[in-house]
């Protein structure tokens, strides 16, 4: 493989945010950002092995008909790649084992949690231990949220964020739930709950609607695994990479780039320093 930093965005079966996710990867510093349809991966035309940063991004995989991302989790776990005999999930595990990066946004976060890629406490990436379910308000919500960052988190994506970031959420099933107290305890103790819905000063996590748009347990909006290389979040970082995407850009003085870009910059820098 050349020394290019390469990002891949998987699309197909209801993924919707592939264009802006690839755009964010390029802006963040990746040399290449390829949008790959799942059909092209299952047919063997494109393999994850050729990339460093995998984006599982927003959408409505299979219409979220069996619960968000459930059908895709089932597909990725069980479908085989043509011509190789290997199950697609083996490519995923190899990708993770090779120390590469995966970022799941919204539907992609739901997919990671339901496959077990997050929080993956004991390094088992195929055992679901938490979930994302229907918002407490019972409705899809498109609104912007203040996200307090845990500075002690191992997440490689949030390095350098001072207090928090401001991003839009756009989901109907974003309520994070972990029914097992022990798992929840380990998530918090390990600083894996990297982003929490908070007040506008990023002072404290909140359970109040609409600041917390879905009623997530412990106000969790984003989660990483203990290595920090795998992360998922309900808010959309790719939707705020330029100031004109901010809902109040016409009345506030804002820097040229948006809060979400830092995640992609950090990913690109990590790849450049560690994987090429």
């Amino acid at each position, binding site marked *: 493989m050349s020394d290019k930093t390469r990002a891949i965005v998987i699309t197909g079966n209801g993924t919707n945010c592939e264009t802006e996710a690839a755009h964010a990867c390029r802006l963040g510093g990746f040399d290449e950002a390829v949008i790959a349809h799942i059909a092209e991966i299952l047919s063997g035309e494109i393999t994850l092995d050729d990339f460093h940063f995998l984006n599982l991004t927003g959408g409505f995989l299979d219409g979220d008909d069996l619960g968000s991302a459930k059908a895709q989790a089932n597909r990725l776990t069980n479908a085989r790649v043509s011509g190789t005999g290997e199950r697609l999930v083996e490519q995923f595990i190899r990708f993770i084992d090779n120390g590469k990066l995966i970022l799941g946004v919204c539907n992609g976060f739901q997919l990671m949690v339901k496959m077990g890629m997050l929080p993956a406490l004991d390094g088992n990436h195929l055992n679901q231990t938490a979930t994302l379910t229907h918002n407490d308000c019972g409705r899809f919500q498109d609104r912007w949220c203040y996200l307090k960052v845990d500075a002690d988190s191992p997440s490689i994506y949030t390095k350098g964020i001072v207090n928090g970031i401001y991003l839009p959420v756009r989901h109907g099933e974003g309520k994070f739930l972990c*029914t097992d107290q022990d798992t929840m305890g380990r998530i918090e103790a390990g600083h894996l709950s990297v982003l929490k819905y908070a007040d506008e000063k990023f002072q404290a996590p909140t359970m109040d609607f609409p600041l917390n748009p879905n009623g997530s347990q412990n106000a969790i909006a984003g989660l990483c695994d203990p290595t920090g290389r795998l992360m998922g979040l309900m808010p959309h970082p790719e939707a705020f990479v330029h100031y004109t995407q901010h809902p109040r850009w016409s009345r506030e003085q804002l820097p040229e780039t948006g809060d979400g870009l830092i995640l992609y910059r950090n990913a690109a820098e990590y790849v450049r320093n560690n994987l090429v």
Partner: protein
Amino acid sequence: MAHRIEIALGEDVRDARGERICDEISHFLHLPVHEVRSIDVYTVDAELSRDLLEKIAAGPFCDPVIQTWTVDRPQGKDFDFAVEVGFRPGVTDNVGRTAREAAEYLIPRPFSSEEGVYYSVQYLIKGDLQQSDVEKIASGLLCNTLIQRYAVVSSAEFAAKRGFPAYVPKVSGETRAEVREIDLEVSDEELLRISKDGVLALTLEEMKIIQGHYRDPKVIEMRRSQGLGAKPTDVELECLAQTWSEHCKHKIFAGTVHYEDENGNRTEIKSLFKSFIQRTTKDVRERLGNRDFCLSVFKDNAGVIRFNDTHSLVFKVETHNSPSALDPYGGALTGIVGVNRDPFGTGQGAKLIFNTDVFCFADPFYDKPLPARLLHPRRIYEGVIEGVEHGGNKSGIPTVNGSIVFDERFCGKPLVFCGTAGLMPAEVNGRPGHEKSIMPGDLIVMSGGRIGKDGIHGATFSSEELNENSPVTAVQIGDPITQKRMFDFLIRARDKGLYRFITDNGAGGLSSSIGEMAGECGGCRMDLAKAPLKYPGLNPWEILISEAQERMSLAVPPEKIDEFMAMSKRFGVESTVLGEFTDTGVFHILFGDRTVASLPMEFMHEGLPPMQLPAKWTPPVHTEPVLEGKADYADDLRALLSSLNICSKESVVRRYDHEVQGGSVVKPFTGVANDGPSDAAVVRPILDSFEGVVTAHGICPRYSDIDTYHMTANAIDEALRNYVAVGGSLELVAGLDNFCWCDPVLSEKTPDGPYKMAQLVRSNQALYDLCLAYNLPLISGKDSMKNDFYDGTTKISIPPTLLFSVIGKMDDSRKAVTMDVKRPGDLVYLLGKTADELGGSEFLAMKGLVGNKVPKVDAERAYRRYKAYHETVMAGTVASCHDLSDGGLAVAAAEAAFAGGFGISMDLAKVLWHGDQAGRNDLTLLFSESASRHLVTVRPDRRGEFESLMSGNCFACVGVVTAEPLLAIIGLNGSEVIKAGLAELKESWQNTLREL
């Protein structure tokens, strides 16, 4: 044998769906219910081992963290009544389809065509209820019996019978390929009966034209040579009925109108479409000369204009009113995913970049009796909003602009306007992206979903008024995911040049799409036996006219077919070759070897003589209201802000993803708390460019009660002034007209047809006049002409409604302006003059009045002012701009102020007045809805520049932005006529629909 897999939420897990139903039961049906829990039920109709069933249940069907599963064992407990709701046989079951696909990954073989998975929901209700109450809950809330079935059991019965039995809603039947011949050598009454019983919606005159065709010796001879008898087959008759339906053929807009104006002057108008709509575009384009930006108008599924050197813009707005009246969720869902296919199927295909939605409903809090078959406005409101939400969000297309309009008469039929814009490369494989062609010998290919009985007679049924016998099959349910897969495949096939022509399968199904495509090259030969079916039992005529969704028709060159089919398979999309295009001049349909229809293309498309339509304009005269002047109008302002047409629609808008694709620049809500109502949307469709697409709309059906000329003029002006407000350029902007009328054809049922027809004529006159003044070419549009309800005794006709949408460009979207005031000290300007024009206003409507003084548009002055204002925006002098519409100046000022979080202090004496001084008073200055006005704020240091760019136009500085959060308006006599805190004004505005 069928198995029931039940998935229930864990006991401690909150059931958001159940809670919502519980709330709706108490709010809506006023029944004492304590709790509702819900269970997902998958009925698996397949021979599978217990082990596999458990693997499926525990795997894709169940979330192990919060759910529990059982196979063939009920999970329900601790309830008083259980209701189970599932689809009727043949109705699109999206969850069932996904469940089946998921199960297939876990079993060693695919499901056979006889096997399937069916989805239903079980509601466990706790409360002090009788069986009859629960029946009411089931039929009134949980289940639309048109497309769903339900069963109710008490807890005792549930225990005795061990839950619900497995029920498989499979369509049974065999394909017998039955083709009937229809004898048209019968009496006139009999001809009409054939039309009515068959939902053909053909008039006696049309039936007689068909009768005449089949009497022609040349036709008889040709038919004999093809093995057909002299009588038409059902396939032919159904095909003609679709092709000639009002829905497809636009007979009213194509007809000859005999118009008499209020002075008795008579004119004959040969086709409103040609005389006004097409002529508008032709004349505007001529005037634009080398600045003309239109690329494809009226001839394709959507209009196409230039965006920049590399890309073109595509836009279409459709309505889906009749299906939404019967099944609001399915009808509206189909409306949005249906209009998506229009820009997608325009030219060689376009990427979809945004949706717009406008809904017209009756009051959701309506509390009077309704005629049978009409759903309560609240159910329509809920269903339509949810249907469009699912269709738009799941398709990944941002909903950037829209509105909801309320009028009691929309309980007869709601209006559901859905628009979609697309972006296509200016050039695709060396040819202009908006052009396409068909060569004889190209293969007829259908891609996407399968054909079922859904949507049969949709086109003809919507060409009649809604009545108690409206057919069930006319309703479809859209499937955004199947469509998304198809689009993902086809957009890639486009770029590889794998097809030559693409179009949508909408109204009329294959009969329309292939009929129109055959018109391109002069004929076709298609075998309906090749068409993939959802289930057996469809006769050839049903296959031909089914409006089953998510299908595109394509012409694929023979040398590309293998690559096309292979790619289709790889992307999981079903594509089928159905025949080939020819140049024989005949629409030739086979079923296997047998010819089942042979229609000369010329007769299909040109055989219908124009309708003759009488129209007589008599201006209505309403009581002229006598309005007492008051010292304080704060209460009136609060009441107006709370009125349905003005109040915040945020509870609806937040349910629509307006930011996906990452290009939103001006969002639906703006301001200090992200909750002020934007005038228009700005979107960047190409993320590494700052070029913006601007879209806005205007709609004001209330003015139709006075004069549809001015209704139309105001709608067009409203669309353009919204567009201009945010910074849209007047150099590149086009319009789309969507007419929704009540039946204007004189008949026994419609004795006032000539008046309604005259309303249509006047509307068209205004369309021409205004568009010409505004240099607005019309690029596409649609009409829906039968928006009435009639059950034999009660007739409800909607007010004539024109939705006018505009799409255009701003070169640098970073210069866009939003409606929220920005900082204290900024100067407040009112652009345009105010007149005594309260007729049809929200203010009068609030008092139960109509009046006569409808706002009149002075288009010439307005256009000049809009151009000057645009220069001030480009110069960066404008801090905020909000258009004045419903509720006039007072409402616009309140909205701009509370959106920005700063007060406005304003003096009515400074407002420029137009017309008789007698009408100039505080009330008219505050609430008159005079057209073409903007409320603008400007930083004091930009004052000189702003005023010099605006010079020569009507505008006045009327006030200032204040730090104090107050709206303070001084009346003509120098005392305050409104003084109100922004928080309370905002609360009035937000309260009305907040909980819906």
